[in-house]
């Protein structure tokens, strides 16, 4: 069962998700790899960490960025299979990502392309939380919202390798730090940290649903 807004953060189940894609457009670009790791309340559970490379014929130039080889991609698993696993991992959890709209848009497009109804869960966005925390101290400088800059601000370790699981874990750790900072003034629940969709997105979603 999907957690509701009253679920306290120390009992909130989340799944930190990171996608590697061929580009920024959910309609034109493709998913190359998916990484995720569950967060149970204030604990990241490494046993649930996964990284799946999606089988791909012609990945294009983004391959170099993500350090994936053509062999990796040829040995990858078909996207519908990976999506199926992700859906199971997400069951009963809130989606957690750094810049969640990106992950949500790609997953929405991917599920649709696979002929499935997306029905994506509520999301928590660490970029948005970082914006909220930094906004308390005045103006936010350029680049301050990036995942690794945000982590550095919380004294989290800088790691060298970034793959889909690495970034999902990095996001999960950042979330623990943010939740701890936000929780200083009192216990929080999902409703306090959940990403609010801008009304335009909501209209778009409604429109897509009608088609």
């Amino acid at each position, binding site marked *: 069962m999907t957690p509701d807004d009253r679920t306290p953060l120390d009992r909130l189940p989340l799944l930190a998700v990171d996608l590697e894609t061929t580009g920024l457009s959910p309609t034109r670009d493709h998913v190359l790899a998916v990484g995720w790791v569950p967060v149970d309340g204030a604990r990241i559970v490494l046993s649930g960490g996964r990284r799946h490379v999606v089988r791909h014929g012609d990945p294009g130039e983004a391959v170099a960025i993500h350090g994936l080889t053509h062999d990796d991609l040829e040995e990858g698993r078909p996207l519908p299979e990976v999506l199926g696993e992700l859906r199971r991992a997400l069951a009963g959890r809130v989606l957690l990502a750094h810049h969640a709209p990106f992950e949500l848009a790609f997953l929405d497009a991917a599920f649709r392309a696979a002929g499935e109804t997306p029905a994506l869960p509520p999301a928590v966005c660490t970029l948005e939380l970082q914006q909220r925390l930094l906004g308390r101290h005045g103006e936010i400088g350029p680049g301050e919202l990036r995942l690794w800059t945000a982590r550095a601000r919380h004294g989290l370790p800088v790691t060298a390798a970034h793959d889909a699981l690495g970034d999902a874990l990095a996001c999960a750790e950042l979330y623990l*730090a943010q939740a701890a900072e936000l929780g200083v003034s009192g216990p929080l629940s999902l409703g306090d940290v959940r990403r609010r969709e801008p009304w335009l997105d909501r209209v778009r979603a409604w429109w897509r649903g009608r088609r």
Partner: protein
Amino acid sequence: MPLNVELAEVRDFLAAHVPFDSLPAVVLESVPPGLSIGYHRRGSVVLAEGSTPVELLVVRSGAVDLRDADGELVERGAAGTCVGGAALATGTPQPVTVRAIEDTLVLAVPAELFHRLREQHPDFAAFFEHRAGMLRDAVARQREHVSGADRSVLSSTVGELVTRPPVSIRADASVLDAARLMSAERISSVLVTDGEALVGIMTDRDLRTRVLAVAVDPAGPVSAVMTPDPATTRPDAPALEALLELVRRNIHHLPVVEDDRPVGMVTATDLLRLQQANPVFLVGDIARAPDVATVAELAARLQRVVAGLVRQGTSAHDAGRVVSTVGDAIEQRVIALAEAALGPPPVPYAWLTLGSRARFEQALAPDQDHALVLHDDYRPDLHAAYFAGLAEQVTGGLETIGYPRCRGDKMATNPRWRQPLGTWRGLVAGWVGTPTPDAILEASVFFDLRHQHGDPALTAALASYQRRAAQAAPIFLAHLAAAAASHHTPLGFFRGLVVDRSGEHRDTLDVKRGGINTIVEIARLHGLACGSSATSTLVRLEDAVAAGRVSPTLAADLRDAWEFLAHLRLRHQVEQVREGAPADSWVDPSVLSDFEKRHLKAAFGVIRSAQVAIAQRYPVREMT
């Protein structure tokens, strides 16, 4: 299935920290998926004292303080610090409170996985057990670590010993010509050649036994009295092999031959010179030195001798004895030279060595600590000038040789440290009866004394008076105890810095003041309290155990801690000397290995437990 990249990073992190670094690679690979990650804000409690840990926590980033029930800092740790492990291993409540002093990310190892790793991997398990004698292995490994690194004596070749081209004579030359040649060249043997080929050797011994003793005509040919076809060696032969050849054949000369041509000669003396790095020879040479300048030249070799000993894996205890023995030889020689110049003393006296050398624990950065005990027949108006002159000449000589004057002026040149036996007794009685801080300081130098020169009866009389006076003065002992217990012993290391109880960080570790000296003081206290006549720290501890004052376990731990610290200092000093820097006791923590840091922490822990034991026995708090 190979690990995902990020989990490989968790694995690599663990692999870089004890005790996980002891796990086999395949086991280490299986650990990360069993872990979880938690986060603690600065100031929050990570693990409360008295709670029952259900997992081992490893600091991944940030830092934590461990404080006991009294709020005393016990440890400060950064990334890699394990907390809760000891309590989890023994199933006992957490003994100290762990608090994040920075925002801290922790890796949590669940109890089940923790216990499985402990059961299957003894090194991993041992890390969480504070067993007695844990320093013992470290001391052995510390020495192993350096042995075999250098074999200067053993690695020399014969070729390196050849200093001059060989002197040779034709086989048809007369014995007389050969003897004249040897005499002119100041050599004890000559090679006999036919063309370029070596056909024999004639030595001093041959001249004695085959010519003079049997009245052979010296006009006859060398070939008649030489040793034909002598044993030879090659330039590339190991020096040790040549040495063994000499010993085996009971000869003193070995021609060096290359491509059938003689290229040199090695003698027993050459091979012994290799042993220059041998302290026995050094002491012998010093005792025969004709003047202070020669003593200084010889003394300069001491550092090389010690470097050699350290490389051969000698213990700090043994190295300390060697340095002290050579120091004794130097001091004795300088005193003898001064006496020879000044004439015999007008009344008997004893020259005392004080401090670290008196304990046989001298290191490579010594200064001078000595005193004179004069016979009670001493008359200042008649004799003061002689002993002042003697003290000045010896002290000046030692300074020339490389022993700086004592900064605290605890030297025979100071009239206060040059007294008749009766006056010394009064001084000792004063220190013991009215233990002011200054008295404690002076006494602590003076209670480590050893006879060096002169009338041993004077030294013995003073030492036994001291011993009885100290043992019978509980207040004096209590002050010694207070001083020994009050030294700040470091807790350990935090991000390459030394941390002490106040939480202060320092960028250098003073091995002497921060550790060795405290053990010395602890041993002195216990030694004096049980009436031990020993000066050496380790013997004092033994005597204290025999008297039932110190538990054998604590004494053994203190001995290991002393050896570990002293060896660390010794290696540091040898390294400094090699780099041409003056030797000191200040170690930069950043050059210490994790192994050394871990065992230093254990050594500090031993010292602190000994300090606690002292504080419990003596009413220390009221006195400081």
